[in-house]
């Protein structure tokens, strides 16, 4: 509202205050006025267009206002600055100007400014008084405007003509009229009353003239006497107005080219046919992608066009074409690819696609395709089938991507996310419909693509219906709707069908890879471990996945993780561990699964990369629970590592099965004060400690309890079965650990006792022990009649073990030392050869080579668990170590041996 005054702000405050009272009404009327100009059926469309125009024009008028102010105070540099801005703003609103014509006020400013500058230029006196900056700005501005005005010559000329012809009284009315047309008009009005007239115009209509003048009088009379003259003039005009109104309106319209309010679709009375509509459509589309194009307006225009087309029954061909373009421009609405669509816009798009599909389904005679050239389209109603250029599949794919983007950008813990997620059903519906459509009409590639879309929406969902059906819990207390739903195909069957089609028909590697991965994922999710594993092995994806693009790699990682979890559920601990090892050992599981970015400093990744990475993120509803993942991994590692550690306690070359697990153990050890476990990790660590002692009951209570159930185990679909499997594994592995750790304490141990201790059946204990004996892990034999295990006590003592380790290390040291020597001699094995050459039959060489073979023997001993050589060995090693400690000045002290 205040803009109203602002635009005409060369009028003084008195008028403003009087105007203030009436403006609310005034705005109302202006709108009414506009409405009159519009054609009835397109009213709301217009308003949007207008508002866009208004915005641009407001910017212009604001700039003009400042210029005028600057002119008044002769601030040339300010003038220049503003003028440049104005030019830019004008350029920006070019699209609107193209439609509407050059706005009157703009022309006026140009003309005035030029006059004004010329006047200043002539005024030598004044120029001298100007400071340097101003003078400089003046000359620049003058040149600029001269050049600039050349483009508007005709407009300016016509303006000048009008302004001369209607100068004295009328020109301010013209200002009024123009003001009414463009609410944001900055009139060059020298007479002070014009604004009040303009704004109060509607009031004038309603109030009797006398009242009006009184009103003006009352207000103005209280002001400074200086203004009286102006006030008089205002009165004069006010009186004049009622009579002259009509005529003047006409005059203004004639003189000033009307600004087009709104691009009318078609001139009144034009016969609307296909050709015209197509032409118009192309016209609209030309603006697409151009800089100043108002995208929202474009969408509205297209909608309007669609409405017209429908109204005139131009046939489905044209409708399809327009719809295509509407959807395309909806996608265009966001100029930035990284930004996501607003959910509302996206929903609109969803509707459009739905409608489009409706049309396509209803009319069998429409052919669409990307390869149909623009000029070979046939849109008109004829006997021939419609041919339309466009690809519905691409649009749907884009829609799906936008959906992903929306989900990525919504806070996953908000209600909004849930609301958005509800639309997933619609997306699936559309993809399903498209799938049916393309199955009939599309090419193989297109079918593959749409199948992949379908797969992508299916693979990560657990099919509860199928699961229940499998368990035979069919229909106990289910509502009818559930019943209905369960009629549908199992997702497994769907996946199978779609994937197999892709395997057979697809020619792009990427789609097939994705399909395989999804298929495996789906299998794994539904505990079909062998199928999943076989598919993974057959596809050989593990070998070449590093060549794939990051999204596929993320999918691969997800699949591997799901595979591992599946193996775990099936009790295949080793497989589970192997599958999860890669993901977990990096410590970046979150990033590798595309479930969040790791905090990293900016040096490692700039903003651009971060954006790219963000775009790869998997939406929240598809996430794999990271805690579950870690827990599964750690528990598998525990079940493997603890017996292994117990078995290889003294092994120097003991390797770690799982670094991650060891890390957790170390963290647990470092704790100064050990309280009861809180987190999942602490539980596992505590359980591991218990297991180390062979205490399976404690281990069990740490792994399976209320806390762990709610945190981890209950997340599995078959939680109870998994728990049973876990208990069993814990018992078995604890037994093994116990035997490894304490076998040296026993002379013999009864299997029955063991079976009682670990609550395992006797045959199981028997089989475990037999396996250990066969694998030479346990030096014992079974005594069948008494059902006992008799220990052989052949394990080396810890001192012997140490000596062995030392011997091994010394072997390495000698080798390293030799290498240094070789480097100096230039031959490998030079040392020994040299010795042989120097002392061909010397016993020294023999003893050295004896020792070498001695190491190997020892390794054999260790592996075979045979008796270690006598204590003389130790002395020999000690002696030997003296030989090799010569260090840099390596002088083989052979005499020692």
């Amino acid at each position, binding site marked *: 509202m205040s803009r109203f005054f602002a635009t005409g702000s060369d009028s003084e405050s008195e008028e403003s205050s009087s105007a203030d009272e009436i403006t609310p009404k005034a705005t109302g009327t202006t709108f009414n006025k506009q409405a009159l100009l519009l054609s009835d059926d397109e009213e709301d469309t217009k308003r949007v267009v207008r508002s866009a125009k208004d915005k641009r024009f407001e910017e212009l008028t604001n700039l003009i206002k400042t210029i005028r102010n600057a002119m008044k105070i002769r601030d040339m540099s300010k003038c220049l600055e503003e003028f440049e801005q104005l030019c830019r703003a004008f350029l920006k609103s070019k699209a609107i100007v193209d439609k509407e014509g050059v706005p009157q006020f703009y022309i006026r400013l140009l003309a005035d400014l030029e006059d004004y500058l010329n006047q200043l230029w002539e005024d030598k006196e004044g120029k001298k008084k100007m400071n340097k900056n101003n003078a400089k700005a003046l000359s620049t501005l003058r040149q600029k405007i001269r050049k600039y005005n050349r483009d508007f010559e005709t407009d300016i000329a016509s303006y000048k003509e009008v302004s001369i012809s209607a100068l004295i009284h009328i020109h301010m009315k013209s200002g009024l009229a123009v003001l009414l047309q463009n609410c944001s008009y900055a009139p060059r009005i020298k007479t002070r009353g014009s604004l009040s007239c303009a704004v109060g115009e509607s009031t004038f209509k309603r109030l009797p003239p006398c009242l009006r003048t009184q009103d003006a009088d009352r207000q103005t009379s209280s002001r400074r006497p200086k203004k009286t003259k102006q006030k008089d003039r205002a009165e004069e005009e006010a009186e004049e107005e009622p009579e002259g109104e009509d005529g003047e309106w006409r005059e203004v319209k004639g003189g000033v080219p009307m600004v087009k309010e709104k691009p009318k679709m078609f001139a009144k009375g034009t016969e609307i046919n296909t050709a015209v509509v197509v032409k118009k459509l192309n016209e609209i589309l030309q603006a697409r992608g151009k800089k100043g194009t108002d995208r929202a307006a474009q969408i509205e225009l297209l909608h309007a066009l669609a409405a017209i087309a429908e109204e005139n029954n131009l046939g489905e061909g044209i409708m399809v074409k327009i719809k295509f373009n509407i959807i395309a421009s909806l996608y265009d609405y966001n100029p930035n690819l990284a930004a996501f669509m607003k959910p509302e816009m996206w929903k609109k798009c969803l509707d459009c696609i739905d409608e489009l599909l409706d049309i396509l389904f209803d009319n069998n005679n429409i052919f669409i395709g990307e390869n149909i050239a623009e000029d070979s389209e046939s849109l008109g109603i004829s006997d021939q089938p419609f041919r339309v250029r466009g690809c519905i599949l691409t649009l749907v794919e884009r829609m799906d991507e936008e959906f992903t983007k929306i989900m990525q950008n919504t806070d996953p813990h908000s209600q909004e996310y849930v609301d958005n997620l509800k639309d997933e059903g619609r997306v699936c519906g559309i993809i399903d419909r498209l799938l049916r459509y393309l199955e009939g009409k599309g090419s193989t590639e297109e079918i593959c693509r749409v199948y992949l879309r379908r797969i992508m929406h299916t693979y990560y969902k657990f099919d509860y219906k199928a699961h229940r059906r499998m368990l035979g819990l069919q229909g106990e207390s289910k509502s009818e709707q559930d019943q209905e739903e369960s009629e549908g195909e199992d997702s497994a069957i769907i996946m199978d069908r779609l994937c197999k089609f892709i395997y057979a028909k697809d020619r792009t590697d990427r789609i097939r890879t994705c399909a395989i991965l999804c298929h495996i994922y789906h299998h794994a999710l539904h505990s079909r471990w062998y199928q999943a594993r076989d598919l993974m092995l057959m596809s050989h994806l593990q070998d070449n996945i590093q060549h794939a693009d990051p999204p596929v790699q993320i999918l691969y990682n997800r699949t591997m993780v799901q595979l591992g979890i599946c193996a775990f559920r099936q009790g295949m601990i080793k497989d589970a561990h192997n599958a999860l090892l890669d993901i977990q050992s990096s410590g970046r599981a979150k990033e590798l699964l595309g479930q969040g970015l790791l905090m990293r400093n900016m040096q490692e990744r700039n903003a651009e990369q971060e954006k790219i990475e963000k775009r790869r993120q998997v939406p929240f509803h598809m996430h794999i629970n990271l805690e579950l993942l870690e827990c599964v991994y750690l528990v598998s590692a525990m079940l493997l590592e603890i017996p292994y550690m117990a078995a290889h306690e003294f092994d120097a070359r003991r390797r770690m099965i799982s670094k991650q697990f060891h890390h957790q153990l170390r963290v647990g050890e470092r704790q100064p004060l050990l309280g009861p476990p809180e987190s999942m990790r602490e539980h596992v660590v505590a359980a591991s400690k218990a297991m180390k002692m062979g205490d399976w009951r404690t281990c069990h209570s740490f792994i399976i309890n209320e806390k762990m159930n709610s945190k981890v185990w209950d997340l599995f679909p078959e939680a109870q079965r998994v728990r049973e499997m876990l208990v069993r594994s814990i018992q078995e592995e604890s037994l093994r650990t116990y035997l490894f750790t304490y076998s040296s304490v026993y002379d013999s141990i009864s299997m029955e006792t063991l079976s009682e201790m670990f609550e395992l059946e006797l045959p199981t204990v028997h089989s475990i022990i037999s396996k250990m004996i066969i694998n030479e892990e346990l030096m014992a034999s079974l005594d069948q009649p008494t059902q006992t295990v008799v220990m052989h006590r052949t394990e080396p003592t*810890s001192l012997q073990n140490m000596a062995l380790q030392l011997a091994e290390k010394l072997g390495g040291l000698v080798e390293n030392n030799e290498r240094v020597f070789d480097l100096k001699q230039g031959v490998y094995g030079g040392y020994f050869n040299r010795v042989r050459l120097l002392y061909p039959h010397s016993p020294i060489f023999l003893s050295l080579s004896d020792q070498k073979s001695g190491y190997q023997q020892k390794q054999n001993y260790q592996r075979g668990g045979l008796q270690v050589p006598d204590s003389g060995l130790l002395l020999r090693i000690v002696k030997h*170590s003296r030989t090799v400690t010569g260090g840099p000045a390596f002088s083989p002290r052979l005499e020692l041996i």
Partner: protein
Amino acid sequence: VGARVGTAASVGSWPLVGVVLKIIKHYQEEGQGSEVVQGVLLGLVVDDRLEITNCFPFPQHTEDDADFDEVQYQMEMMRSLRHVNIDHLHVGWYQSTYYGSFVSRALLDSQFSYQHAIEESVVLIYDPLKTAQGSLCLKAYRLTPKLMEICKEKDFSPEGLKKANIGYEHMFEEVPIVIKNSHLMNVLMWELEEKSTMADKHELLSLSSSNHLEKSLQLLMDRVDEMSQEIVKYNSYCRNLSKQQQQKHQYLQRRQQENAQRQSRGEPPLPEEDISKMFKPPPPPPRMDTLLIAGQINNYCQNVKEFTSQNLGKLFMAQALQHPSS
């Protein structure tokens, strides 16, 4: 205090019993397991021997009081001792050890600075574990003049050590120790010996060996590992060096050929470039650590050898006792 002996090599040390007892007490009170205790030796030089007549410990200080000034403390201590008219001349320092591990860089550095400042100073190494087994183990060490030279020049590169012709055997020299008592004290001891009943000394005959051996082996292994690493480092250095030499050679040859060609064509030869800048030799790894490790390994080996031979003797003895008939 008389004149000091010029040649430090012939120094023998004569600590008094009191000093030894003080050191032992110090360890008993403050030393725990592998922690070491250190202190200052005081005494005087008589003829060609060094008499250690007194000592005082360095206080154990934690990292909290970082502003603790050791030098200040020593000076203060010595001043106080002078006031009560006790020998206050600095003649070295002592340190406890854990399974004979004392050959380290820190020891080398501090002994070097001692010997640099006070020529005749020694370091006394006290092994509490061996002592606990029944035989007092106290050894005095000095750096050899050769090592002193090297340390002065701070040249620990392979070439430097090679030139100095130093091996781990020549790093430290052991100084013989004679422990003396005042005659009056000796008399008292004789008297006491008559009166006291003999204390049971079981430790000396203990047959258990594995614990001690295990520990020694463990330490030995650690050193061997370190040694291995050092050697690998040295090895890679050698390889890099030779590779670079080769490259340099090739480059020079190419340059020569090119110059010859240019000469035949009558063009001026290529400008000389600074070859040493283009082929910067890789920094040689310091070898002093290797020497020290070697020395330490040697030390361990001696210990183990000593221990095992003693133990074997004990075992044979025990066997003979068990089967007197055979």
